[in-house]
């Protein structure tokens, strides 16, 4: 078992929107965090045996598994800079919401059979232009990375 981390900066406390992609079962999870341990810290929680392992809980729930035995996991995160005007958790949730909706739409339109397991409610700021444009940027970045993995898998 090994793990490849491209940059240590993802352990820095900041605002992140992240994506977990599981190859088997084929599912993804989009979330946001401002954890003191950065996005990597949040991933650790998701994969742990603690109550914060929301990703694991969702897999168990939606796939009706008794236990989870994940194969390959890919993790992408987007660090939001301070000048992006994302000043509260509600703003960040709005970004997370729009990223989830747009990502789901693009996945379906591209014909990928991958389920989105995460749940995020409206944050209340989805109508703001900076939130919309940031969300689209994040979706584009995630799709670029995801498509690299998917086309590699197909070949």
């Amino acid at each position, binding site marked *: 078992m090994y793990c490849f981390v491209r940059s240590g900066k993802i352990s820095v406390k900041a605002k992140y929107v992240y994506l977990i992609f599981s190859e088997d079962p084929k599912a993804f999870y989009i979330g946001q965090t401002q954890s003191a341990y950065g996005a990597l810290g949040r991933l650790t929680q998701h994969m742990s045996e603690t109550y914060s392992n929301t990703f694991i809980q969702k897999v168990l729930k*939606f796939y009706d598994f008794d236990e989870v035995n994940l194969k390959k996991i890919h993790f992408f995160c987007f660090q939001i800079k301070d000048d992006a005007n994302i*000043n509260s958790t*509600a703003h960040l949730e709005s970004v997370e919401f729009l990223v989830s*909706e747009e990502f*789901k739409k693009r996945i*379906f339109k591209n014909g990928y059979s991958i389920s989105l397991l995460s*749940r995020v409610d*409206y944050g209340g700021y989805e109508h*703001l232009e900076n939130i919309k444009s940031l969300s689209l940027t994040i979706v584009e970045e995630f799709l670029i990375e995801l498509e690299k993995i998917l086309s590699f898998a197909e070949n």
Partner: protein
Amino acid sequence: MTKYKGTYSASRLFDALAKIGYTPESAIQDIVDNSISANASTVQVNFLIEKETSEQGRSKPQIVHISIFDNGKGMNKAGLENALALGSSANEYTPTTLSKFGLGLKSASSSLGRKLSIISKAQDDDVYLAIVDQDAFENDEYTFTIEKLSGESKKAFLKKLSEVGAQAGTEIIIGKVKNENMPSYGSIVTELKNKTGIIYFPILRDEKVKIFINNDLIPAIDPLFRNEIDETECILNDHKWDGVSVKWNLKESYIQLSAGASSEKAILRIVQLPHPPSMNSNKILSQSNARKKYLIDAKNYGIFIYRNGRLISWADSITGLIPRDQDLYSYRGILELESSSDEVLNLDVTKSRVHFSDLALQDLSIQINETKKRSVNAWNFAKSTIREVDTNSDAVKAELAKLAIELEEEEEAEDQILPEADKERVKKAKNTLQTKTPPTEEEKKKVEEEGKPIIYVDALLNNSLWERAYDEKNGLIVKVNKSHRFIRTFEPIFRKNPEATYVFDLLIYSMVRSEYMMLKKCRTDFEAMDKVYTDFREETGNQLSEMMRELLERNSAIFDSDE
């Protein structure tokens, strides 16, 4: 191990099939589905009635038979045998079929009557007549007859075909109608005529099929009235809606139907239909005509679920996600499924009950929870706009505005009697407070319109719930963040209870006034103290938002008001 051949009672079997759950209208529509699946471009539904006189001497129409004629591809002898088999061959079904289990014709017709006759002609073939008469089952076994049709009956059928320019077609005739178990003839026909245009809307809209009921052509009716939406305008703004225009509440969202299943999805769209009293008030349509046109009524709000272009569930509440609430009368959506989703949705024989997976319900609840709030807010906003002057609410507003002025005057008076040493400091602080946070022109206008010093704005920095501002003309103003989760959740309650709004307004105004007074009297570092208040507002906003989110996650209906 000994094997046995299973036995059955045909009469009891057909009784059971008859009770699967059809209404007369849905049974007829199920048979119409077969016509459409057979590529018919014309379907004619006709009722033959006779008058029956009751013991009280009143006459009422009784249905003698129901006929559903189409110019589809028709059936030869083998086709008729298959059609009458219990569980017709699945090979007959295409991916876009409206049919599913091969029981529809038998169960639908049994729910209506005890005799089923089918006259059918395939291209370049003879005309056949098949009859299933439940009163003629021999030895309680399921039997039917098929013979070539001849004589006057054949001529009549061929004439019908030629009238629609067809070489093939089918007529289903249901006799020995169970009038005693059915609603009145009038209500059946009315219900059929009212609903068929919506049920087959996509097919009728694209003019693939024409449906006639008692010779009346049924027009396509879009349950969302999308042709009235101005696509250049943005989606429903629940604080500005005029109450008379159809608006998108949710233009499009993809709903995942199941985890792990291929790419099964459905598309959800939701609109806000007009508020009938607003239509009346604006002299566009009377209330009753508006309700009639848009079908606004207790049974018609919710999600209309379509499968392969045909409605399968009318105004579905999606397992109670859409509660019974008259403030939701304008709330209507459609969910479009494809037949490839049948297995993940556990569609039943009547094709009218859908069972969603947990993942589908998760996706649906996110969108429905938000859009229904918007719909209720918009409905109540429209209501409040046309409401005649509510003297009680206006009186409270006026009192609050008056109180604000009186407090200003009192403050002026107090400042004048301060000790000399404090006067300069207080004057400087006051000046900073009054110039630091001026309201925008739009906000000033709102204060004038509202007639009170508390206004609701689109957003505030850092998700704060409130902020103070000062205007020379209007004095101290409180801006409340209407995008904050607390306000969004409680707004329906505030709208229904104006007094609750004023309790909240009073609390917020007194808090802001206290902030203002404390800062004015500040004897230490003004900037540092101002920062503390700013941080306090942000922290309160965030704490409240988190608490609301937590409470709503545990019980999404916790703050729903009773009907």
